[in-house]
């Protein structure tokens, strides 16, 4: 990767939108750039790794491959969600290789060092010789699992691996303010019939960028045109997120609404893309989030989880048909997007593509994300 050329290209991205270029193609195609993003964006800052519903019960643990970093999401006995590095402090063995519940300690499969669900090193069998379970050179108190800073917002799990990012409350504050009508309300996960994943052969940024704007709606989602026209949408840009909203949300669904919503949500819905890798979709009667899991420069897993305002709406058989219909609707919409995200990925192979340009009227949320990435990489 030509770092001087990258630096020049990034400086063009952070110009005012009318004069800016998009991020250069190398950031969508190169393993070296992917590694740089891992360091400067996904490790140094806050990023999404999954959902609280992944570990619903005390003792539940789920291993996560976060861009090659093995993490372990755990629900501890007090019900708190914690994330650790999923490796034994002894020889670096992976501790947990599949989701499961731990009634007791987490035991390393190699030499059986044991860790409590709060990460404390609980046992070091035979470490001082056969049958002797302590040794002076290993301090149990400082040899527990490495805990990762974790934050939870609307059941979306964020981590900061470096431990050096701003406090989570500061990171999430602009989004919390935008979604304040929903943020503190009970959410109920829809379960298996309200969950789906899409395997996308495109860079993670392209998937997020596509969600930033409504410009593509009439061309890529003609079905939406009948009830949610381009002119009914608006854009927004805020610190750490940008996106679009609609003023005519009026689906043919009959889910109960979230309680005590202001009247503006009767017809509105908003779709903030939260940098770097999750987007939200908020409506008066349901909410979903899409976690983008970057697997390679040209490969992303998009996982979508839908939530409802009541336990009945989320889990009762009487709502099952409606839940399935709603999930299928969103799956169709997001599947329609794959042709353009994968098409843009292919387009990054064009030797003379210069990152593209932006419409100030229609692409400003996308440019805001590009500029955020450029600033992170240049830091």
């Amino acid at each position: 990767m030509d770092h001087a050329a990258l630096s020049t290209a990034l400086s063009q991205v952070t110009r005012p939108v009318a004069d800016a270029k998009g991020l250069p193609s190398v950031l969508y195609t190169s393993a070296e750039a992917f590694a740089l993003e891992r360091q400067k964006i996904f490790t140094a800052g806050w990023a999404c790794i999954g959902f609280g519903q992944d570990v619903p019960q005390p003792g539940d643990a789920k291993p996560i491959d976060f861009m090659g970093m093995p993490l372990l999401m755990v629900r501890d006995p007090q019900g708190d969600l914690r994330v650790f590095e999923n490796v034994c402090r002894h020889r670096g063995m992976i501790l947990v290789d599949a989701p499961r519940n731990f009634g007791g300690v987490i035991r390393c499969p190699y030499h059986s060092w044991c860790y409590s669900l709060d990460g404390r090193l609980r046992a070091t069998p035979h470490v001082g010789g056969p049958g002797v379970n302590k040794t002076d050179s290993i301090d149990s108190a400082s040899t527990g699992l490495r805990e990762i800073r974790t934050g939870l917002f609307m059941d979306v799990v964020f981590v900061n691996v470096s431990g050096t990012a701003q406090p989570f409350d500061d990171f999430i504050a602009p989004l919390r303010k935008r979604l304040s009508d929903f943020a503190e309300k009970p959410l109920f996960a829809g379960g298996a019939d309200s969950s789906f994943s899409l395997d996308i052969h495109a860079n993670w940024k392209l998937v997020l960028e596509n969600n930033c704007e409504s410009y593509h709606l009439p061309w890529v989602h003609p079905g939406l045109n009948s009830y949610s026209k381009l002119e009914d949408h608006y854009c927004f840009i805020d610190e750490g997120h940008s996106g679009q909203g609609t003023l005519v949300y009026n689906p043919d669904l009959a889910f109960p609404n979230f309680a005590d919503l202001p009247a503006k949500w009767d017809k509105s819905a908003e779709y903030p893309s939260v940098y770097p890798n999750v987007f939200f979709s908020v409506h008066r009667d349901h909410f979903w989030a899409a976690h983008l899991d970057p697997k390679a420069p040209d490969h992303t897993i998009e996982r979508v989880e839908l939530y409802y305002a009541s336990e009945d709406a989320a889990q009762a058989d009487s709502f099952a048909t409606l839940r399935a219909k709603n999930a299928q609707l969103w799956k169709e919409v997001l599947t329609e997007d794959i042709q353009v995200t994968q098409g843009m990925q292919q387009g990054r192979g064009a030797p003379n593509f210069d990152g593209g340009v932006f419409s100030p009227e229609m692409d400003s949320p996308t440019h805001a994300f590009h500029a955020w990435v450029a600033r992170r990489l240049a830091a």
Partner: protein
Amino acid sequence: MPSMPGSPAAWPPEALDARLRALHDQPGAAAELSRLHQQAMAHHSDPRARRFHLTQAWVFALEAGDTARCAQLEADLKALGGL
């Protein structure tokens, strides 16, 4: 796998060893592994061998989440110089 009749305490060492090997890496076997190792300890008079099996029994009790049993095994280990 076939089980031996009677209490594990009465099993000969070969039968205990066979059962321990059969349970190796079996999900949900920690509690039984803990009990079997404690029984295996009874076949030994050498303190090193006794501590070995006691340690195994302790680790599997930790895995099973049996706190009362863990406390007893830790007390036994301390008495034998294993903790």
